[in-house]
């Protein structure tokens, strides 16, 4: 078994654990593990910049956001947890079966290969693509980040006023 196969199996197991675990905190940590393993896969697929972003932003920042949000919420009582766990088993036991069937089907399916490479895009570096070929993407990113910042400011200002 190669390292790539181990990484791909680790992604599937981590995502399954993220969805099926009872605790929200463990689900957030499972998501962080999934992101970290995906970052390693991105490194191995010759895309280090995307891997760094995935590791620092998805495995780091988003997990911090999730954990801080979860810490602001009231934990469930023991009775509520027991009731929820019974329902969860009924709801979620289909998921591993579905994933196994889909994995088996797509492992057997013929995926087309032999794509033609575009000569102008093939020789370019990611920095050239970002700054020269697709500058509008950067503009869009700036606009979206500003929209997110203003959205959060307005959300929490409204909450503060209601108090």
């Amino acid at each position, binding site marked *: 078994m190669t390292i790539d196969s181990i990484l791909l199996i680790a992604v599937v197991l981590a995502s399954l654990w993220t*969805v099926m675990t009872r605790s929200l905190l463990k689900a957030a940590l499972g998501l962080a593990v999934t992101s970290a393993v995906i970052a390693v896969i991105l490194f191995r697929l010759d895309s280090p910049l995307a891997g760094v972003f995935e590791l620092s932003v998805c495995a780091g920042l988003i997990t911090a956001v999730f954990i801080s949000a979860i810490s602001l919420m009231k934990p469930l009582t023991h009775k509520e947890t027991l009731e929820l766990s019974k329902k969860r088993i009924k709801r979620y036991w289909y998921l591993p079966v579905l994933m196994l069937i889909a994995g088996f*089907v797509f492992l057997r399916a013929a995926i087309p290969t032999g794509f033609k490479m575009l000569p102008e895009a093939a020789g370019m570096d990611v920095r050239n693509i970002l700054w020269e070929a697709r500058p509008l993407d950067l503009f869009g990113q700036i606009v979206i980040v500003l929209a997110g910042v203003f959205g959060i400011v307005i959300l929490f200002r409204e909450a503060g006023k209601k108090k």
Partner: protein
Amino acid sequence: MIAVIIMLFIAGLYCILVTRNLMRVVIGLELLTKAVTLLLIAAGYATGRMALAQALVITLIVIEVVVIAVMVGVILSIYRYTGSLDASNIKSLKG
């Protein structure tokens, strides 16, 4: 690789469809985004356009972070208003 991407996609979709917990919906959405990230990079690797794929993934990650941050903010506001994370509690919202 494609099989793993599809499995990741199914896990995210199942998480969104089955649960009523709003935080788990966000986690499911995040899993769907991870599947798309892997798909973009795999497509870039197959076609030899890694630079373009990486540029798209970086844009995707920035958008993902902003969406998650705003969604978590909205969920916290809903939690303060209703006292629970159950999506069925916000059915009676006006508008």
